[in-house]
């Protein structure tokens, strides 16, 4: 698609109102796709011109907020950064898996954030270190792979794609474990022991079967599997030393 070229695109969109519908269905819409258009643009065209009862979630529309995670042609991604041209003329759009549907494409993120909360996603500062900016030269390597892992926008794409989460939703899942890693690797943080106890526990890193589904779908190109491996190594090293802190 270039310039003002137009191509007809058929979208099958999952529709479901839990209180009202006995089961989900797909509604079909046809739109004229133009250059640069994304799935989010297509949804807005449907909403404003064809069916004002369609529901979906979005906010920044630039890939920064992680509100518009969904499954497009069987792959998780952000609607705002998934080009129609890449998906072809037949597109199926459905909500993320492993999360209850609120309506149509909008899901309840509570299970995702329940796991997120379990790993204590907040910074636990070292009060003794004084209240100043830590001096950490970038070349020191002391922050491990934090920089490559820190930009998670909690869109839930990996949580939806993870086979292990689908099998058992008590698994903490890729995003939350990735967040745990970024704190464990942060020399300024004092919560490593509490966090490792959970990350290395029965719902934690050992459940990961390194299928790399999370990596495949992450819109921020984060590799949660890598963070999980780092946590696994640490857990094993700690166990060999007979537990306790490092």
């Amino acid at each position, binding site marked *: 698609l270039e310039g003002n070229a137009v191509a007809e695109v058929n979208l099958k969109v999952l529709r479901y*109102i839990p*209180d*009202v519908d006995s089961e989900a269905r797909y509604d079909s819409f046809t739109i004229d796709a133009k*250059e*640069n*258009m*994304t799935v989010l*643009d297509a949804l*807005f065209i449907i*909403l*404003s*011109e064809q069916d*004002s*009862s369609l*529901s*979906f979630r979005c*906010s*920044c*529309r*630039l*890939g*920064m*907020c*992680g*509100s518009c995670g969904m499954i497009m042609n069987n792959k998780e991604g952000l609607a*705002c950064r998934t*080009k129609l041209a890449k998906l072809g003329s037949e597109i199926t759009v459905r909500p993320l898996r492993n999360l209850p549907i*609120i*309506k149509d494409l*909008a899901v*309840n*993120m509570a299970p995702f954030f329940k796991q*997120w*909360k379990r790993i*204590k*996603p*907040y*910074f*636990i*500062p070292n009060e003794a270190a004084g*209240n*100043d*900016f*830590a*001096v*950490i*030269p*970038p*070349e*020191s390597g002391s*922050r491990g792979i*934090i920089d490559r892992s*820190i*930009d*998670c*926008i*909690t869109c839930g794409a990996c949580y939806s794609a993870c086979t292990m989460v689908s099998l058992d939703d008590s698994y903490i899942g890729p995003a939350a474990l990735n967040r745990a890693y970024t*704190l464990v690797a942060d020399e*300024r*943080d004092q919560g490593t022991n509490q966090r490792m106890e959970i990350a290395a526990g029965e719902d934690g890193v050992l459940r990961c079967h390194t299928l790399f589904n999370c990596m495949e779908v992450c819109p921020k190109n984060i590799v949660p599997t890598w963070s999980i491996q780092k946590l696994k190594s640490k857990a094993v090293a700690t166990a060999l030393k007979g537990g306790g802190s490092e």
Partner: protein
Amino acid sequence: MIERVQCDILILGSGGAGLFAAHHAYDRNPNLKIIVAAKGLIGKSGCTRMVQGGYNAVLHPDDSIDKHFKDTLKGGGLLCNQELAYTLVSDAPKRILELETKMGCFFDRNPNGTVHQKAFAGQSFDRTVHKGDLTGIEIINRLRDQLYSKESVISWDEVRGIDLLYNDDHSAVAGCLMLNLQTGKFIVVESLALIIGTGGGAGMFKIAAPSLEKAADGMAMAYRAGAEFVDMEMMQFHPTGLLAENSRLNGGVLEEGLRGAGGYLFNSLGERFMEKYDPVRMERSTRDQVARAAFMEIQAGRGTRLGGVQISVAHLGRKNVLKMFPGMVDRCKDVGRDLSIEPVDVSPTGHFHMGGVKIDKDCFTAIPGLFVAGEDAGGIHGSNRLGGNGVADSTVFGARAGDAAAEYVTAVKRQKVSERQVELFVNQTMKPFTLEKGENPFQLRKELGVLMWDKVGLVRNGADLKDAIAQLADYEERADRCSVSGVKQYNLAWHEVLNVKNMAQIGRMIAIAAYERTESRGSHYRQDCLFQDNENWYKNIFMTKGQDGPVTVTRDVQFTHVQPEQLFGETARSMVSVG
């Protein structure tokens, strides 16, 4: 039956202002019942997350609060409320330190391990702290995550404010009527204090940068409740909004650091057009100047096919661009361009409202119980905001609002909300369901965008503004005639009706103030008044709701810290041509 909830502090908005308010109020008194409610998911909606460039704070020994203060005033055309601007620059270093040492942010470092500060426009010192070129993600993620350690703070996803509720004798704000987007049900919240930090309504312009749900809700609620506003004519357009024909990506900002690092702007003739407008600072001129220059080039027929100009950073070297601006490179890929080797089409884009609710430095408003922080507040940035002062504003004043509200609630008694108001607002809000074949709110919003862009945008004139003022009153009525159908759960059309109404109300205030200011200053430019009138217009325009719409009053700027002579020298009291 409408659900009723009582709390001590209700915070509307979960950007930098809302979350900082929650943290500070909790830290001040962990026993308070605090609710943070956002129109989107907490921490995900709003624009702090969308901050790219960074955060201005004085950290380096060669920099000073005085320099940052004067840069801010100068950038703001001396219209700033100097108390607020001084508070901003004085508190910014404390908040950035708090972000690092208490919230866990980690900003980019110099090779020696100290905090790196980069160049932004209109600044006498490179003082912009950042995390790559997507700084907001780090700030808002950490502010959100940190809230999980404060379990008593209640977070409400996708619950928007509809209107403020007074007590029965109308002497203080006693709560807010809320609407849960997910369930479609109303909630009456009775609170001792209410903090508004929902962000502005720049999305009312055809080309605009903010997140899509932002619709001036907070300001519109405050307006209807009788709050006083200031500087409403001052709307910032960011010079470099990405042009993405046909896509909602359109207008998304390419960050100011591109210009700060030495990026060029070209018109379609290949000229670096800033030579004509600001030969000294060129592309590093302030946002108001660069945005207007680009707009005028486009208007003069020297725009690109997409109706923009081009930004080019390829001369900085491919490797450098990829290293300094990975987020921007990634974004440009979405329109098929490689920022590291070729120019990219950009246009001025509606970005930030300098005007807003009049506050004091602790975010008190004229209405007892109502606090306002962040973009919803006015007066801090005068006629133009410096890049990097936005997130500083929301965090600094969000924190102050939280502190002040936590003190305030210990001294006041709980009041009943006016049931008459509850009933009135519920009925008004439900009206679109009672109408058939009314206006389409999405179409109305589109029309509003064109009207605001054409007549109340970067280049204004009296006749157009007058016309816009009349049309905008009509838009409010048209919004009342919108109809929606279907279930109430997650009904986006219903919410768009509420959005358009709020934006039309605030849009009208912008047009009225712009009509009144018969000069050009900062982001406000009148082609029928091609001068900055330093004899007569060191004045702020204040506005409140009257019987038939906004009523204005004009007052002199109080030069409490710095006199015009200290910044503008010889031209401090004269008419300066801006043609």
